[in-house]
């Protein structure tokens, strides 16, 4: 399990962020005492630091440079200062990525994942498996009992999201949101078409009622 350190002075954000990241399967350490950061980082040895630049009474950029000097761990700068100049300064002071507030939760999670992957941590699972159904993300294929089907980009994203949340009800709006994040700008009708096609392919594999429609709520795998 990877450990993420949150350096953030707003208590509510700190709390919500810890909760969010814990739900995503990370171990979270949040700092409440903003003195001797270097010592604290050395003590808990995180895999990634989420650093808010607007700490009380401290220059966040100097802190970033200080962490960079002493440790090799990746730093994601989180700040409300969003001009190109600020971003340029942040990245040249040793930040690995630069996210501006208010961020979208999925975007934040994706960036964290990307930075961890780049820094040579655990690579993201390439194959998702639910009830014997195997989805290979890089090949874009789904297979069951030795038979396999190729998926289109949209179908792949939809199935991947459903499989990642297997058992939960995923609303149509959430699915549309996920697809838009991947620059697939689909509307409600296109989503229905894609889900129907996906069902046909799963049926051909021998899993006819794999994706259930929960009336008024969404889909469930």
């Amino acid at each position: 399990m990877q450990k993420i350190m949150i350096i953030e002075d707003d208590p509510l954000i700190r709390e919500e962020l810890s909760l969010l990241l814990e739900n995503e399967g990370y171990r979270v350490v949040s700092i409440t005492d903003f003195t001797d950061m270097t010592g604290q980082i050395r003590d808990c040895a995180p895999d990634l630091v989420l650093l808010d630049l607007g700490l009380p009474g401290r220059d966040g950029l100097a802190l970033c440079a200080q962490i960079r000097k002493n440790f090799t761990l990746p730093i994601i700068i989180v700040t409300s200062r969003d001009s190109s100049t600020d971003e340029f300064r942040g990245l040249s002071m040793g930040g690995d990525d630069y996210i501006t507030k208010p961020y979208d939760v999925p975007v934040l999670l994706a960036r964290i994942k990307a930075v961890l992957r780049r820094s040579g941590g655990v690579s993201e699972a390439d194959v998702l498996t639910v009830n014997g159904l195997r989805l290979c993300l890089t090949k874009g294929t789904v297979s069951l009992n030795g038979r396999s089907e190729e998926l289109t980009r949209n179908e792949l994203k939809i199935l991947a999201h459903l499989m990642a949340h297997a058992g939960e009800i995923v609303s149509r709006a959430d699915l549309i949101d996920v697809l838009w994040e991947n620059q697939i700008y689909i509307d409600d009708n296109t989503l229905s078409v894609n889900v129907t096609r996906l069902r046909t392919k799963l049926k051909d594999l021998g899993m006819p009622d794999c994706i259930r429609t929960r009336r008024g709520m969404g889909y469930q795998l």
Partner: protein
Amino acid sequence: MTIYEFLSDRLGKIMVQLCCTAAAAFFLRMTGTSSGVITLLLLFLLLIFTVTQISEYHKCRQRLSELSALLQGLDQKYLFGECAPPPHTVYEQKLFALMRSSGRAMIGAVSDAQASMQEYREYIESWVHEIKTPITAAKLTCRRMDPDSRRKFSAELSQIEAHVERALYYARAESPEQDCIIRQASLSDIVSQAVGNHRTLLIQSQMKIETGNLDFTVYTDKKWAVFILGQLLQNASRYRSNASPSVLLTATPCGRQVQLTVSDNGIGIPAHELPRVFDRGFTGSNGRLRGGSTGMGLYLCRKLAALLEIDLQISSMEQQGTTVTLTFPAKQLSETLQNRKTNPY
């Protein structure tokens, strides 16, 4: 200064001199000086008078042209009094001192105004940065609400964000040299960021986003371009038509420039209002009918686009849709911006 102006300025003096000369000539004649001598004397006086007047006229003209050249060369004209060479005669020096002290009062007022504008801008910026923390917290918290309220709540939050962004960019447009970095940027990145930023609004208004070929590199400030595009997307979804609203984003090379076209199939803008859509605070009949229009979006777009040297054109047909074309500059550009960077005043 023309000769006529010069002479009319001195008319009184010349008349007095003429009278004195005539009186002197009359007196000499009475006291028995021969008329030949008087004529000679008068001719001699006339010669001296003419020569001095001509040389004075030339001096005046030269001085005036020097001063106006100086004024021409000044970037801030109100600093003229500080730069002009002091005159020689005591009377002129006194006048000059008066003018200079009035000029100084104005310089003081101007720099006070500039300072307070700068302070105001800084306040707006820091306010915007402060407000982003609670917005972030609210966004994180609303994740745990039930789906229906969450959707409503995040729609409101993204509206707040859009308003805050506009305020920030309004303040930034006043002194662009502080935040603007012109670099290579991928046009498809700019488009996907702009769409991503306004995802909530676009999905909720059921806009269909179609993208054409966007594989181009442009030279611009990415954040600003994303902001401009974001305003256009917001407009497209605010003034959408009821039946299957869509917006098409596509780019074409145009010589060494790149042209990005954003066209929607919305309700369009009446032809007579089209020339005014970029005016500050202009909401038009559409804005008045629908409400919630600030008249700031397109105004800011034009202002920021001008700073980035992006050419912004709009065309529209009522009930057919609106097309906005952004022409990004070729590589070698932004001299004005570079100049402003090195020399803000």
